[in-house]
């Protein structure tokens, strides 16, 4: 049975701040990783807050996320430090974090996850344009449905907006104006919530309906994107068209929370081209585009992470050539994940498919 609390303040962000500040002021955690504005830009960045007095800029409910913060979360929880951390993360960030735990990139020891029920994020530029008009984007986004339509393409097809594995879930769906609901997801979360001493509340009626409606809308969108994308890349030639403007900048892999390699193999000596090899390749096909291995890069990356892709859409967001990388990756990932009956971020104990094998042949598997 979950424990519920509700904080109502002057604004949504104030309500969140009240709760998170107590975490620090009551010494329940040593630091909080949360999205916060800097004095220099409205764009909230992952920020490690260690003092209750430094909570001013936090803005986790603003519809922006220039990073999938799983990466930053993994950085601060790379190894147990003896300090207790609270990580305020969106659902896709938590799922990615779970994958990174499996890959030994971080530990959840002494970590509290506060999950945000996420209505989506905007592309950075879109967000900044709106932010120039609306001072409180978090609040505006809650009530202004036209703003809600401005979230990223990938967010529009996201069905997993309710966080899993969160100790505490932070939600605004079905909550009164300027109020934030807190629900415990684990025993740790329950204890913490009690210690925080926030006003208790009931699970708001009607939130389930809202959730269901949103889910239906997202599912329809996802189906459409998958169908459209699958058709767009169903031949290698079409795929070439799709990635024709790729600059081999590897931003997508840099932004990808589950592309965890310290250095991508495509940046290593393995793919360093030699002039005579390039000449031979050119001679063979008549001409060769430089840099080479663009297709190889994308397909290899798929073969490396399709099973773990959490569908956060950062790869599309960072692409300077506006290639819908996330459309491609989520479409393929869904198929690969179905083949292995694997859901990234579902369970810390669920092993990465390639790292285990069966002695017996499964029916339907290749001979």
């Amino acid at each position: 049975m979950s424990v519920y609390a509700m904080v109502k303040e002057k604004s949504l962000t104030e309500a969140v701040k009240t709760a998170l500040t107590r975490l620090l002021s009551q010494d329940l955690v040593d630091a909080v990783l949360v999205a916060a504005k800097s004095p220099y830009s409205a764009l909230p960045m992952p920020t490690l807050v260690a003092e209750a007095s430094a909570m001013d800029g936090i803005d986790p409910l603003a519809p922006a996320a220039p990073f999938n913060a799983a990466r930053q979360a993994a950085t601060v929880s790379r190894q147990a430090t003896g300090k207790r951390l609270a990580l305020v993360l969106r659902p896709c960030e938590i799922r990615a974090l779970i994958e990174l735990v499996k890959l030994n990139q971080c530990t959840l020891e002494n970590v509290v996850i506060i999950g945000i029920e996420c209505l989506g994020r905007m592309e950075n530029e879109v967000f900044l344009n709106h932010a120039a008009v609306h001072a409180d984007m978090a609040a505006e986004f809650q009530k202004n449905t036209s703003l809600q339509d401005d979230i990223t393409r990938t967010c529009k097809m996201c069905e997993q907006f309710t966080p899993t594995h969160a100790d505490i879930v932070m939600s605004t769906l079905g909550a009164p104006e300027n109020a934030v609901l807190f629900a415990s997801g684990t025993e740790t979360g329950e204890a913490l919530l009690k210690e925080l001493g926030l006003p208790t509340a009931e699970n708001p009626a009607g939130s389930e309906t809202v959730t269901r409606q949103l889910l239906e809308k997202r599912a329809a969108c996802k189906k459409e994107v998958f169908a459209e994308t699958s058709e767009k890349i169903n031949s290698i030639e079409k795929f070439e068209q799709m990635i024709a403007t790729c600059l081999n900048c590897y931003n997508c892999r840099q932004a990808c929370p589950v592309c965890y390699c310290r250095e991508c193999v495509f940046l290593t000596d393995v793919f360093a081209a030699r002039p005579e090899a390039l000449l031979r390749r050119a001679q063979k096909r008549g001409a060769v585009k430089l840099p080479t291995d663009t297709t190889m890069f994308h397909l290899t990356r798929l073969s490396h992470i399709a099973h773990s892709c959490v569908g956060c859409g950062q790869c599309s967001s960072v692409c300077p050539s506006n290639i819908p990388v996330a459309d491609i990756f989520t479409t393929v990932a869904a198929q690969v994940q179905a083949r292995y009956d694997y859901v990234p971020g579902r369970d810390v104990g669920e092993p990465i498919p390639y790292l285990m094998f069966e002695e017996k042949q499964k029916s339907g598997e290749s001979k």
Partner: protein
Amino acid sequence: MTTQNKPRIGVYICHCGMNIAPRVDVEEVARFIQELDHVAVARDYKFMCSNPGQDMIIHDIKELGLNRVVVASCSPRMHEKTFRNAVKTAGLNPYYFQMANIREQVSWVTKDSREATEKAKSLVAAAVGRVFFHQPLDTREVTVAKSVLVIGGGIAGMQAALTSANAGYQVYLVEREPSIGGHMAKFDKTFPTLDCAACIMTPKMVDVLQHPGITLFTWSEVEKVEGFIGNFEVTVKKKPRYVDETKCTGCGTCMQKCPTKKVISEFNEGLSYRTAIYTPFPQAVPNVPVIDADHCRVLGQNKKCGVCAKFCETKAIDFEQKPEFVTLKAGAIITATGFQAFNPTSLEQYGYGRFPEVYTSLEFERLNNATGPTSGKVVMKNGKVPERVAIIHCVGSRDTRHRKYCSRVCCMYSMKFAHLLREKTGAEVWEFYIDIRSPGKLYEEFYNRVQEEGVRFIRGRVAEITDIIDDPGDQGRLTVIAESTLTRRTVRLPVDMVVLSVGLEPAKGSEDIGRLLGLSRDGDGWFNELHAKLAPVATPINGIFLAGCCQGPKDIPDTVAQSMGAAGEAIALLARGKVTTQAEISRIDPDLCSGCKSCIESCTYSAIRFDEARKVAVVNEALCMGCGSCAAACPSSAAGVKHFTDKQVMAEIEALLM
């Protein structure tokens, strides 16, 4: 890369006499290869593996400053070592070498000369593409434990143990039965010299027991094998004997007194009974009985008995014994797990198990043996001496429905039976054969001898053995029905006794031993030797050797010779004292490693550990076997197998598709 160590590749296309050259246009291949990047010289030559061929490479390396070599010839499984040594002799690192297999993969399997030449070009170009990225590799030396594990205590294992121990090395001989001796201990005479098996065998058994260098584990099984050449860690399970070996004097009173007397004797092939506490045969080594827990009243049926314990003066009986596990260190392992006789029950038409007078050859051996159920008298179950006996060859052998191979020993032992029958009973003996196979010293002579002794030979596989009679006078006899392919007549021969010369098949449990040791088995289940002709006792697993029938059917002289060969290999290894580890093992680049531990989870040999301080995976080179599972699991290619790097493999693929 400075000009000095800029790759200069020498390529050598072998004619292999007439094996490659006429089908593949070797000169054209050489001309084509000469034009490739970094190729300093491309030559073709009659026999690259010959001394002049190797000298050509050595000479070119020195004179032309080659620093990479490609030889296009046979399979690298054949001559990779040869050429690596040549390269090494010339002062280059032996891993600056790559082989293209244009014989097994091209000239021998491709009909069209044009296609063969094109394929050869492609394979050689790929080798050139690959060798460009080769790196010098080092091997390490590891000390070899001065002991040998021999698995199986038949004549093969005994001989291997004796030879190894005579060289001064510690030998552990493990036998799963209560006594050593194996099948040979069951035989009466041995062909073609008709030596008494026991007379030549028992002294050897005693030698094994008394040899100070041999530790004997009977009634024991190998439970676990870990480690690698020179350093195997072996766990032996000593099954409970329920008799204390240190106290037992072998007086045999327990066996006389044991009230459970009707247990079928395995050693006598079911033709007689033994007691629940028993030694398989009187000359058993060690002469210490075993209690058969399944049949013992105390152990198997929870009854009060303990008669053996009551009568044992040295109090050697111990019903409380438990399995004991012993850990040993061995530098080499000799596998001598032998064979088992084919069970002819599935050949319904021969009526084995249905007609009492149809015997298998092993049963017949026991019937002939002085320690056997009839004390060596060849008589039928009714006690009468047979007047006519048929011996059926190739039962289960040379038969696509059963075992397609020739079991090699059946013709000869069948003729030995014929001789013994003539000598002991004067019976008429008819041998039904497909072909008589008597290749061996004095074997053909023996064949002639038994013919002269009046043994009749019918060339034809027997169709059926039945008790349906045509003549009422043959009541109680069996009729052997066969086509005599020499006279083109059907033979219906009434006989008193039939001996089925059953073939040999891998011993029960050899599959498990194979898994334990990592040995592969051929389609029939025999262990694969490293090379059928040139490495017949070595296996693909370094430090593990084969002796006797576990590698394929063999007679006693061949078994003994091969066992000495296996022991010789083991001794050579132990005497050298050191082995060089393989160079093709995994390495993990700490600068690229993200510490995800995927490689650690993939490693079957627990050869990768995690360095918590640096948060990177580290390979234990002594344990790594070079399988590359870690490399496939590592997305950043931080883990890779030396000599099978991404660059090398992808260069090969790229060149193949040029």
